């Protein structure tokens, strides 16, 4: 209960913050500290720009460069070739394993029944 009362007291004090003449020396002290800190705005724009410019250049080059077919092929070519070779091998394997099997159902259906032959 005491903690709650204590908190309410601080909260009530804080409400006086927005008034120009709060009268509370603690609020005046803290406002003074903020005022000092407000004047302390370092002029670091040029330094920050110098440091980030090369990164921004590379970012904009990578995002804005026109799409080149050669670059796209160079980037995806080896993986594409590997995938194509694998697919071809699988298809060839499947074809060869079915080569000696019985005729397919469709072919059997088209041939005349044994008694008429």
């Amino acid at each position, binding site marked *: 209960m005491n903690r709650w009362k204590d*908190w309410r007291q*601080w*909260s009530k*004090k*804080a*409400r006086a*913050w927005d008034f120009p003449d709060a009268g509370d*020396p*603690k*609020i*005046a*002290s*803290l*406002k*003074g*500290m*903020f005022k*000092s*800190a*407000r*004047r*302390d*705005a*370092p*002029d*670091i*724009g*040029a*330094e*920050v*720009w110098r*440091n*980030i*410019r090369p*990164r*921004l*250049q590379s*970012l*904009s080059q990578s995002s*804005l460069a026109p799409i080149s077919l050669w670059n796209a092929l160079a980037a995806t070519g080896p993986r594409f070739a590997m995938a194509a070779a694998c697919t071809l091998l699988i298809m060839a394997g499947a074809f060869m394993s079915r080569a000696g099997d019985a005729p397919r159902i469709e072919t059997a259906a088209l041939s005349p029944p044994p008694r008429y032959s």
Partner: protein
Amino acid sequence: MIPALPIDEDALWVERCKAGNPDAFEPLVKKFAGRIERLVRGILGDRRLEAEDAVQDVFIKAYTALPKFRGDAKFSTWLYRIAVNHCRDIIRRSPPVSVPLDENLLAAEEAPETEEAGSEEKQVRAEAESSRQLQKLLGELKESHRSILVMRELEGMSYDEIGKALGILPGTVRSRLNRARAKLLRAAENIRSEKP
């Protein structure tokens, strides 16, 4: 006669960047770097090295996300949002270490000005120290309270702008700000009471 609409210079630079001119980002960096640095330092507290890198990362993130910027909010508000989210990521990765506070400075802030207070050097030193102590005080609060205090008290942003930057309603901004101020006041009081 129809009054001329104010030209949003930031929006013009943003459009040029979107058109593929990275150099158009320079005026935006130069305009907002100091403010973003102050915001990031306010939220990250004593992690000075992380804060330095964070400012650069915020601008790179913003540049990369520019195509998604629709212009519903001001560029600065959007940039603040990126900065706050980036700071949250840093804090999530490694929680902050609490640094003991110096009671003397709070006493000095409250003390009336002495006759020798005119010295410029003294003033600069006092301001730097004050700023350092404020960071330590802010370090006593949780991140959501720190962010809101820095945006309101250091950057002078309106409730509406803070709400947009943090993704909360202006009413929530008001109540959270009051809680943050109360906690800051209590933290400052605790420093005094801890002194033997």
